[in-house]
């Protein structure tokens, strides 16, 4: 009888409680919604900390800053060494936007030394128009004008996962970033931003 009751009541309860999930906006500061993986909030946090540190660094002040002098930054590679499928460009973009707004750096999209080539190949392609009869040649961009970068941004996101007890696990992410001064090859600035989370150990973190 107990079982019959259970078998009949359970579906009823479920039907009443409903099982569809409604879509909702999430406030990016709302900490009640958290995942073991990396979320937008984690990227925001790491990027903001990195930005503040870069802006505050005395080594990264352009000698002609008062006359509007800015350093030019190229993006090398941010290695995703986690178990999460993430787009590291998301992190880089936040930092780039912040640096541009700070007035200290400009990012070049014409130069990249990774396998994928430059982010925007238009700077090179526009110069191919010198032979085009259609173009007003005085408007075609000349060679020798594209600015070579002063600094390169590289980094790595690392994940460490450990069991706390049978029901809980600890996940630590480390955002490691480096700005290399290209004249000397020296790392003028480095930052590491750890983020730690605990959650259920029932399954994996991704």
């Amino acid at each position: 009888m107990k079982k019959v009751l259970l078998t009949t009541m359970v579906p009823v309860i479920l039907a009443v409680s409903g099982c569809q999930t409604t879509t909702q906006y999430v406030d990016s500061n709302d900490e009640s919604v958290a995942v073991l993986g990396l979320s937008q909030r984690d990227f925001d946090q790491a990027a903001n900390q990195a930005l503040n540190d870069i802006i505050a660094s005395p080594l990264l002040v352009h000698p002609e800053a008062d006359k509007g002098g800015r350093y030019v930054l190229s993006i090398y590679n941010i290695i995703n060494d986690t178990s999460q499928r993430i787009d590291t460009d998301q992190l880089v973009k936040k930092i780039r936007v912040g640096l541009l707004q700070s007035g200290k750096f400009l990012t070049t999209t014409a130069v990249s030394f990774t396998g994928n080539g430059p982010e925007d190949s238009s700077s090179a392609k526009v110069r191919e128009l010198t032979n085009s009869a259609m173009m007003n040649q005085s408007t075609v961009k000349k060679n020798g004008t594209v600015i070579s970068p002063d600094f390169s941004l590289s980094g790595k996101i690392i994940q460490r996962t450990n069991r706390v007890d049978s029901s809980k696990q600890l996940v630590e992410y480390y955002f490691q970033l480096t700005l290399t001064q290209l004249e000397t090859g020296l790392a003028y600035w480095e930052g590491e931003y750890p983020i730690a989370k605990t959650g259920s150990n029932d399954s994996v973190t991704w």
Partner: protein
Amino acid sequence: MKKVALLSLTTILLAGCASTSGESPLTSLTNSLKPDSEISKFDLTLATGNLAEAESISLDEADYDEEENILDDQFWGMQAASIYRFKKDYEASNQFFDLIEDVMYQEDTEGTLTNISETLTSSLTNDTFLDYEQSVYDSIMVNTYKALNFTAMGDFQNARVEWNRADDRQRRAADYFAKRINEKRQQQQEEAEKELEENADSGEIEVDQSLSKAEELLAEQNIDMSDWAAYEGYINPFSTFMHGLFFMLNAQDNSDLNKAIDSFKRVSEITQTNVASNTLSLAEDILRGNKSVSNLSNVWVVFENGEMAKKEEFRIDLPVFIASENVNYAGVALPKIKENTDYFSFLSVNGQRSEIVADMDRIFKAEFKEEWPIILTREITRSVIKTVVQKQVNDKNIWLGMAAGALQAVTTQADTRTWSTLPKNFQALMLENDGSGQLVIESPGFAQALTVDIDPTKKNIVYVKAINQSLTPAVEVISI
């Protein structure tokens, strides 16, 4: 029967909400009344070399819903993903493996209600009613294959993520077998007791007596698992070896090289193979600066040999001790392991033989041994419940009793689902690149040697998978 139907109905209602994996209970209910022929049909088509038909069976059974992008059956999804991989359709293979990971996650985290409902249904039927629950080696191999697929596609960023996942699954494996399997056994025991209490005449049934009798009967079947042992830490050394190879050949920094060295050290200690210790020396030379990754041009030949052991059903007549009555005999269906023939033994290139870096039969048996007490308790509890129900029905109406007996006979079925496209073992050998741009790969099981083109200036991984003698081996060359 009404009860079975009612219980199944509950499951259907519950399953309707959660997008869980596995056969729908309704399908299971129907299928349970006939022997599971799809598995043997699949095995047979592969044995006769009909890859297209095997693919079609696995896709039908996996029941992929394109609109919702979900798989209905994880087990068949794994078979299909393996076949796609064998056909070098890496994208489709990874699409299925990704979906399988979603199902695995649901299986790991599924709520108590779903679990109870599944157990209730299975208690009056059999284990094939339960959703396929991935073994630990399944989950490690899913990420390992995904990483290999991404590597073959030249997508090293995603391959890195998958290797990190495979590594995390290996870490979890040790934890699972050290702690969680005991919790699972305990939970199983409690559920079994509860089932018996609720089902009838609990005071009269002597399950322990039936269990101890079962052990005697199993001993008579020559089922001896005492020599079955896992690799240290329950790892799959093949996954660890390939993890090391990836991080060595694609090293971005010393941290990657250290990861590779840790992996090779572990595999070298566990397997005592030349291929692991020589690759370890190479990685150590790179870290010390004696060699450079960019100048390496070695060749690793990796061999997936044959087919892993399978589960087969066997039946025994078990006495069920009911205090007030004479002893009743009930049929019990249990899985046992049957090894497949080793057709190929090894590969050889220039007289150098491949060595076993992971024996999947060993991994499979070790895990089966850990799960065995759970499978046995569940089957015996189920058999006792069915017998008591049959006896009660029989006391009231002899015709209905006979019908219940017939139902008991057809629903007694062992769960023999095994990811059968996994190999018997993984082997590897390492060669210097002689610059000729060609390798001649021989095996005692090959009708003719394989001639493979490689890049004479780069690092090459030549991946050979031979399932059986009817199917031409698949060869993939990855030049980095």
